[in-house]
């Protein structure tokens, strides 16, 4: 039986204290990779794992506007394209976003 990740989408609240972002528990947790997506001026610069710790501070202090959101892997199927990336499965956002500026 293949696994289904339909219906209720996982959700967590995140908040910022200084430059450190904290997450609450993930409700309806699918149990797949949980990661912080960090963008600077709109461009993705890091996707560190978020499962083991409930907070994260991005070490880069390059000036710019930073936006952080929690993401989880959504498995649809295993299929991959010629570049060996997934075709249908993807990361989806599972939290609110927080921003700060340096």
């Amino acid at each position, binding site marked *: 039986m293949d696994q289904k990740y339909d219906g209720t989408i996982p959700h967590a609240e995140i908040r910022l204290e200084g430059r450190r972002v904290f997450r609450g528990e*993930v409700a309806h947790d*699918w*149990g797949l*990779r949980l990661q912080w997506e960090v963008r600077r001026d709109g461009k993705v610069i890091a996707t560190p794992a978020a*499962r*083991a710790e409930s907070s994260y501070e991005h070490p880069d202090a390059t000036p710019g506007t930073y936006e952080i959101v929690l993401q989880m892997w959504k498995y649809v199927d*295993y299929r*991959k394209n010629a570049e060996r990336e997934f075709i249908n499965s993807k990361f989806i956002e599972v939290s609110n976003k927080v921003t700060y500026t340096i």
Partner: protein
Amino acid sequence: MLNIGRVNVPVCHGFTRRSFLQAGSAGLAGLTLPNLMNLQSAGAVDDKSAKIRNCITIFLVGSPGHLDTWDMKPEAPAEIRGKFSPIETNVPGISICEHFPLMARMMHKVALIRSLHHKTGATHENGQRWMMTGHDFNADSVKPHSGSVIARLFGQKSELPASVVLPGPIGNTGAGPLHGQTAAYLGSAHEPFFLNTDPSLPEFHVADLDVPKDQAGFRFDARSKLLSQLDDAQRRSETRSTTMHESAYHRAFRLLTSPKAKEAFDLDREPGNLRDRYGRNTFGQSCLLARRMIESGVRYVTLNHFDTVFNLTCWDMHADGGGLDNTYLDYERHLCPQFDLAFTALIEDLDQRGLLQETVVAVLSEFGRTPQLNPRGGRDHYPAAWTNFMCGGNIRGGQVIGSTDKIGSRPHTNPIEPPQILASIYHGMGINLDTTMLPGPGERPIRLVEAEPIRQLFS
């Protein structure tokens, strides 16, 4: 003392074929649990003083690459060591893959066995047969699943079956139907109960526990009574197969009519945050159900992480670009996080309920994966070396048993074969492997497994 099933047969100098056959036929021809309990005395099976009373085996169908998970070789060349990095665990000197951060925090509970290997074919089924039964075999000599052996030896301790397979049996893994998950010659009374549905689905319920809607209560009772009467009439001409058949029917009726059984399968009774902790997926909810099964009296739970290796994300990392196209991305995003969350939730949960001290959890697989990455960046089947692990009961955690060479290609120290894993489980559950035998085909006495326990596992 010779023990056959729960029948203890005193012997002075070993046992005779005649004593075996006498006890064996008694055990096979209609001994119900009360009869068996009456016949119990100190013998080869001593489940009263055993440290391990229950077992959960988690079978990682497809088989993780040992070099990418629990036997990393960061000093090896890139085409050997792969893409992942090791992290330290809470046991100094033991490191595992970075994608198991939660497991790394409980390594003090886990005994890694890094020198597993077997010498038969490199199909999934060879490895499944070894790990499920302790034997490799062909269609003419099918061996019973370890859960069925436990069911045969110890019987049920509640209305629930002694052995349960979650969420369903192993299906097509490429080389035939012999996966080692049947009772074989032990008969249908000792077949595992297969859930056969996905416990993570919102509409999850166990079809086998539903009385058909057109069966009113009294009608169901009447049918049960009629079955008993027919059974009584047939008992005079009883054979082994009719007895097994009867037991299977009675087991089914007990399940259908037992509120405790229905309750055991009802995951809605669990708090939402605990269900989240296990992961809202087939594997995670099966792990949670495994804990509920043990709590409700099941002795042996087998949990198959996937029922096939084809056309889905699973551990079988060939990266072939077709139906076996699992890659590092599947490991990083799906498989490792899913396993890490569910496995650690299970261990924590069992521990908090006081069940871990009497329950062994064995994480097993068919083989390892080739030390050298294939041209597509995957790894293929490799039965010459792999890592599995155990915890719970009186297993001594925080240790590594055996090792492989510098590239993970061969056992370097303390080579271990799959039958030793089952021998260890049986031993831990109080079974004396030298004196406990089962009636095999033709009712010949057969040893459970031709191996010694791994003594180093136990504290």
